[in-house]
């Protein structure tokens, strides 16, 4: 249930994001989800792609600093309070969320949200127990 995410260090200057996108495109890598966290000096680009290993290799060769992290991808019930429900489950079990972002999946069974948490296994266990659907790698990458 753990999904691989690639985080890339980007300096805050024009054209950097475009370069990453172009590099991945040239190598036939498809971006499934992304988010950027930024400050005035730098940004961190977080990517979920269809071929994580290949993407890492391509970016490393181009001298980008990156790290691979594991995240969980949750299908959030598509009704008001859906996200609150999931957050409450995590809070009750004291799972710390480092960051999260949403992305639009190709299926329309609800909103899909990426969570980076401290206690990955615990989060998977409690969410599954609560009947929340987690997407596995294959589902996310394809």
């Amino acid at each position, binding site marked *: 249930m753990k999904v691989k995410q690639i985080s890339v260090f980007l300096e805050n200057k024009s054209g*950097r994001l475009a370069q990453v996108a172009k590099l991945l495109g040239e190598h036939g890598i498809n971006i499934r989800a992304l988010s950027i966290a930024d400050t005035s000096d*730098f940004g961190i680009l977080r990517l979920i792609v269809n071929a994580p290993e290949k993407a890492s290799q391509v970016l490393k060769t181009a*001298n980008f600093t990156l*790290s691979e992290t594991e995240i969980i991808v949750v299908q959030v019930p598509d009704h008001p309070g859906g996200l609150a429900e999931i957050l409450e489950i995590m809070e009750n079990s004291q799972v710390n969320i480092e960051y999260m972002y949403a992305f639009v999946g190709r299926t329309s069974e609800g909103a899909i949200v990426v969570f980076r948490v401290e206690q990955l296994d615990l989060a998977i266990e409690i969410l599954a127990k609560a009947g929340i659907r987690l997407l596995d790698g294959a589902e996310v990458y394809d």
Partner: protein
Amino acid sequence: MWNPEIETLPRRELETLQTIRLRETVERLYQRVSFYRQKFEAAGIKPEMIKSIKDIERLPFTTKSDLRDNYPFGLFAVSQEEVVRVHASSGTTGKMTVVGYTKNDIASWAEVMARTLGCGGVTKRDLVQIAYGYGLFTGGLGMHYGVERVGATVIPISGGNTKRQLQIMMDFKATVLACTPSYALYLAEGALEEEIRIEELPLRVGFFGAEPWSNKMRQEIERKLGIKALDIYGLSEIIGPGVASECLVQEGLHICEDHFIVEVINPETGAVLPAGEKGELVFTCITKEALPLIRYRTRDISLIYSGLCSCGRTHQRMHRVMGRTDDMLIIRGVNVFPSQIESVLLEIGETEPHYQLIVDREGNLDDLEIWVEVSERIFSDEVKKLEELGTKIRREILSTLGVTAKVKLVEPKTIPRSEGKAKRIVDRREVYQS
């Protein structure tokens, strides 16, 4: 002139005095400091072999690393009971360079500083605002004792707090200012903001040192503050400020040659260069008791003027410092070696860091920016952690070096490399331009 008898001593008599004092110093070091005895013996030197001033060339050099290797008091030639003061400056790595003074050394220091002040015509009627830092740094206290020796009034305000500096300068009617040249310009700027016409205040002369500056900057200081701006030179290893000072002729800095023997050498071969040739300044202390260094290599590049100055002083003049033989930077009066910054980064990243120091002068104050390439080792995909990294580097630099720096995290391979080696320093201040 503070001490006309000595300051205008005919050259022959001055050289005789130097020879006697040099021989005494070598003899004393031979007896008292094992480091020097070993060095002299290795070079086959016996004190009695020093017969003329020219014989100094037979003596071995002393370097900053000798001071570091004998940290803190290993090179002292007197017992601790006789040491009445220590000062320290930054070393090339973690350890500071420590220097000591006996009661007589403090008196000699006051004497040479009084001559510096005399070079600018300072008398008991003056009020001297000392805006050099007080503390381990020799600037503040060195100047202080000189002013007291002259009998002028000391205003020991120390560095910083521009508003208060200006208020006191106005209210006390200070006539003399002593600080770093960049701080003088900073004060001028502050005065403008406070709508104080600083050029119309009683201030008439300033003694500026502890960092390199250009002639262009001198003109700017003189115009903006309405004063004569004099360049002074010194380093703690030799005594502190007071080693040399410009007189009002402003054509080179007179060296107190009855206390310090000056040489200019080729930094590569160690060969002594004739007057007029550019090289590394080397000083030998011939009156110091606690820490008399022999042929200390300053790493400062300068030259000795040939001929005498029209002011009447017979002591030789050195050119304002024209550069360094190493990569030391002086930032807001603080000596900074890139190696010190490297050690801080090493401790944090546990790996060889790629970094670059960008030094600039913004609004007359030095600005240090450290660019650090983000390697996988220090990268985190959480903004919070990366920001903490920047803060940590900044804090460590401040606590170990005593300078504030901006830290900028940059992508790998963005710092230009030449022949595989990164260019460590970009200094945009043009301080060594004449």
